[in-house]
């Protein structure tokens, strides 16, 4: 009430005005420093960087007959566009339809993003706020696993899934028996979860360990247990870090080809795998490849543009500490 007596504007307006003033000041300093040469150079690089994508994007909207008989740059003089490529591509049937593979990608990516985050949060909290012997050694080990090329782990893990483990002649774990089972995603989910954990634990630990000690001490004095601190304090505060990692993991799983190639059982491939196959089999059917590629790019780009801030933060956190 007092504040409104002095300044009739709402807090929000004040905040907005302040921000505008700050931006203006920033722009002023920027103008002083900015140079025409740098701007031109940056624009040139940006254009070069965009031409390849733009070319295929334009191609995906051209008539199939036009695509192979004239360059995509001729659309500026002779536009003849269609969306039928997208319709045809979605229904195109190789080992499965492109639409089905798109759905498979969604089915793969949701659990493969949520499950590792939940498990990593538990471990990250313990690494950050519970003292135990051998903690540093274990942490360095987890961190080292982050760099291990997954190629090294693929084949034994696949054998583990299909034939299990035998010690001597005792079958200790009989395997999952999912070879060739159509419609099963279990192996891909599990593999992605396992491969995601080192980075997930590392990133979330860095964030959780940086939370103020005072809050933790105060909670402990109030009699909160580790369980309560984890659930009531750490989880809500760690939300930005969770979002950052979720985006990284979403992009990683959606864009993955290698894990899908090895661990798909039956013919339920994600869209990256189907596109790779199409690129081999129908290498010159550009109406198909262009539309398919852009269908596959849409979800990551949506995530990218909607949550860019968290994405950048995740990259910064992942790299600067390493």
């Amino acid at each position: 009430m007092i504040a409104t007596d002095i300044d009739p504007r709402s807090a929000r307006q004040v905040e907005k005005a302040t921000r505008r003033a700050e931006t203006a000041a920033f722009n002023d300093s920027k103008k002083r420093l900015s140079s025409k040469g740098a701007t031109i150079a940056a624009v040139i690089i940006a254009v070069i960087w965009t031409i390849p994508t733009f070319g295929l994007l334009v191609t995906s909207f051209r008539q199939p007959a036009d695509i192979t008989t004239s360059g995509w740059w001729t659309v500026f003089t002779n536009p003849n566009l269609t969306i039928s490529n997208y319709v045809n591509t979605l229904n195109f049937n190789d080992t499965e339809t492109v639409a089905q593979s798109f759905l498979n990608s969604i089915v793969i990516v949701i659990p493969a993003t949520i499950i590792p985050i939940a498990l990593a949060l538990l471990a990250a909290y313990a690494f950050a706020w519970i003292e135990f012997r051998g903690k540093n050694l274990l942490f360095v080990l987890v961190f080292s696993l982050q760099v291990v090329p997954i190629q090294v782990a693929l084949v034994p893990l696949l054998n583990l899934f299909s034939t299990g483990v035998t010690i001597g002649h005792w079958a200790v774990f009989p395997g999952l028996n999912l070879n060739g089972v159509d419609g099963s995603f279990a192996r891909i989910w599990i593999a992605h979860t396992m491969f995601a954990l080192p980075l997930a634990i590392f990133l979330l630990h860095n964030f959780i360990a940086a939370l103020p000690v005072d809050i933790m001490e105060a909670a402990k004095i109030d009699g909160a247990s580790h369980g309560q601190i984890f659930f009531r304090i750490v989880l809500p505060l760690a939300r930005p870090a969770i979002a950052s990692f979720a985006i990284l993991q979403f992009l990683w799983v959606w864009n993955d080809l290698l894990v899908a190639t090895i661990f798909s059982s039956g013919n339920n491939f994600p869209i990256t795998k189907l596109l790779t196959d199409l690129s081999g089999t129908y290498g010159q059917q550009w109406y198909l490849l262009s539309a398919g590629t852009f269908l596959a790019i849409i979800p990551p780009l949506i995530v990218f543009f909607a949550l860019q801030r968290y994405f950048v933060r995740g990259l910064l956190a992942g790299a600067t500490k390493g």
Partner: protein
Amino acid sequence: MSSFFQWLATLPSLLQVVVILAVFAVVVALILFFIELAPRRGRGYTIMRLVVAIAVPAIIVLVLGVYNDAVWLVPLAAVLGAGLFLLDRRARGGEGSILQLTAFMLPAVLLLAIGLLYPTIKTIIDAFLSNDGSKFVGLANFAYVFSPSNQGVLALINQIVWVIITPILATAIGLLYAVFVDRSRGEKVLKVFVFMPVAISLVGASIIFKFFFDYQQGVQIGVLNQIVVLFGGAPVSWLQTPYVNTALLIIVLIWTQTGFAMVLLSAAIKGIPDEQVEASELDGANAFQRFRNVTIPGIRPTIIVVWVTIAIVSLKVYDVIAATTTGQNDSTVISYQMVRLFQNLPPQNGGSSAEAVILFILILPFLIYNANNIRKQRLGL
């Protein structure tokens, strides 16, 4: 577990997501519930801890599934759980603290051990065994991999070229771009153009560039050949030309990684104190001198981090080769050969493992460097 997943596979795929997440949520809820109750005092809670310590390991073994002749594992797991319970009774952090810690850590540690640690060790062993794993063959797999028919030497050289060229160029261009946009208007918009490829899959990027490099008889539809034609040259089938194809495919990876380098370096440049920049301006340093003597030293740690990260990415590059040349015309790399040998009929398990080990050796310096860094950091805290 096997039958659960087989049952799950019969459901419509979107329903599978709901079911698996529901089951997972129940498991996590149980873990959290136990974490909450574990350190409480009183006889009831002690009994609860004892029951959980004995029952959970046994249940895990049962859920994983054991054959009849290995049922002895169930009581063994229970005994191990009981041992943990006894250990926990004398825990320094108070009764229940070890069990609580176990509940926090076990799921992740177990999965890491099964999914990364065990397979890595197994692969290293397999590299020295015959394809069916029955006998020790010494270095025969490595000899096989490097035999002329398998292009092992070529794959190794190509892989090393990838690892050296990609990070240097991606970091250099990313740095230049970061410096340029730092001094130009519309910085945010300009950044998006170079950053966007980071979100695009390597498969998508490969197809985008396959079209860019396209070659056909008559009219050219690929930009690169069109430029060649404009300057009066004859179009080239780029991806079929040995060595040229590797160079061009490296560009694909550079294209996707530059944005990553740019974002990190840009953030580092903004972290350089203004006073340093202004001081150098007052001293009459021109733009290049300022770049060399103020910017570069200020962001050196970030440059190294970016360089190492991109080098690791280019070690693992499989997608680009798989989506474009499939290793034809001398473009293959170790990480592609590894999958190819594994998918051979019959699978060349030994050879495939040997390729993986070579890859692992290539990555070892980065791993040691990174692990050392983090160890220093943690001891410094």
